[in-house]
C-alpha cells in the first residue's frame, strides 16, 4: 500500500515539476525505468504469494537498474547501443510478462 502511494506520489511529482532529463542520463533512463518495473512486478508477485522480502526487493531494484544502465553504457561504448538496449528491453519485457502471468494466475486462478 505504501508502495502504491509512493508510486502515485512520484508520478505526480514528476508531472508537476517537469524536470528536464540531463543529457548524460537520456539513454539510460528508459532502460532503467523498464528494469525497475521488472523489479516492481517481481515484488508484486512475491507480495501476492506472501514471500515478499524488502531486502531482496531493494537489492534487486537497485542492481537491476544499475546492470541495465551498465549494459546500455557498454553497448554505447561498443557501438551496439541500440541493439543492446533492444535486447535488454526484450528480456525485461519477457520477465515482466512472466511475472504478470504469475500474478494473473494467482489473482484470477486462470
Amino acid at each position, binding site marked *: 500500500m*505504501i*508502495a502504491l*502511494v*509512493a*508510486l*502515485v*506520489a*512520484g*508520478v*505526480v*511529482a*514528476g*508531472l508537476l515539476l*517537469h*524536470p*528536464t*532529463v540531463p*543529457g548524460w542520463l*537520456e*539513454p539510460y*533512463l*528508459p532502460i*532503467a*525505468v523498464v528494469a*525497475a*518495473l*521488472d*523489479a*516492481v512486478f*517481481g*515484488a*508484486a*508477485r*512475491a*507480495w501476492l*504469494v*506472501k*514471500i*515478499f*522480502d*524488502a*531486502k*531482496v*526487493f*531493494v537489492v*534487486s*531494484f*537497485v542492481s*537491476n537498474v544499475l546492470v541495465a544502465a551498465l549494459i546500455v553504457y557498454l553497448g*554505447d561504448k561498443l557501438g551496439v*547501443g*541500440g541493439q543492446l538496449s533492444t535486447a535488454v528491453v526484450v528480456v525485461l519485457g*519477457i*520477465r515482466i510478462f*512472466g*511475472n504478470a*502471468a*504469475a500474478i494473473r*494466475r494467482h489473482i484470477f486462478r486462470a
Partner: protein
Amino acid sequence: MTDRPAHDEQNHKMQEEHDREAHDHDEHGGDESPTAEDLGPDQVSGDAPVASRWRGHAKLAGALIAVLVALLGFAIAVQVHSNSTSDSLSNARDDDLIRILDDQNSRAERLREQVAALQTTADQLQASGDRDGVAQQQAEQQAQDLAILLGTVPATGPGVRITITDPKHGLKAEDLLDVVEELRGAGAEAIQFGSVRIGTDSYFQDSSTSVVSVDGQPLSAPYEVLAIGDAQTLQTALEIPGGVAATARAAGGDAEVEQAATVDITATRTVANPRYAKPTGR
C-alpha cells in the same frame, strides 16, 4: 517478514505448485521470485542475525521501498514527459541521428532539384509571357496600321489640302480617279475625297443626278481632297505637267494644292468581312 520456517515451507509448496502449472520457473528468478536458489543462501538458511537485522529495520526498509518506488514513478513521469514534449532528436542515438541527417540531406537535395525545375519552368513561362506581350503589341500596331490604310479609323498627320474647282463640269469620274491615283502614287497614306474616305474598294462613277459619285455618294464641285503623306512629294505629283492640276485647268477649272503641317482626316469607312478569301497561316 513472518515466521521464517513456516514461510519457507509455504514457499516451497507454492513453488512446486508453480512449477507444475507454469514452466517459467527461470523467468521469475532474480528479483522477488520464490525459488530457493534465487532467494540466496542467507534467506534460505534463515540466517537469524541477518534476518532479524532486516526485520529490525522494517521501517527503514519500508521507507527505502517507498523512496525507490517513488523514484520509479518520478522517472516514468519524467521520461514520458520528456519523450512526448521535447523534440525526439535530443533522445536519438548517433546512428539514428546520422540516418535522419542523411534522410534530410537527400530530401533537401530532392527539393533543391524540384526548386530548380520549377524555376526553369517559371523562367520559360515568363519568357513566353514576354514574347506573347511583344507579339500582342506588334499585332496591335499592325492592326492600327492596317486600319489607317483601310480607312476604318480617323487619321492625322502632315499632308496636302487640295481644292478642285470645276465650274464647267468638265471633270469626269476618271479625272477624279486620276487625282486619287496620283496621290497614291506619291505615297499618300490616307485620302479623303469630299466627305468620303478613300479605301481599297473605292470607286468613282459618273452620275446623272450630280456630276459624280464616290462610293455611291454624290459629290459636286468644288471638290476638297485631303491627303496625308509627304506634303512636298504630293504637291509635286499633283502639279507635274499633264497631271491632275493641268487636267483641271484644261477642263476650265483649277486645282489648288496647299501643304499643311496637320491634316485631319475624320471620315471613316467600314470594311466588310471577306466572304470568300480565308487567311492561310503566316
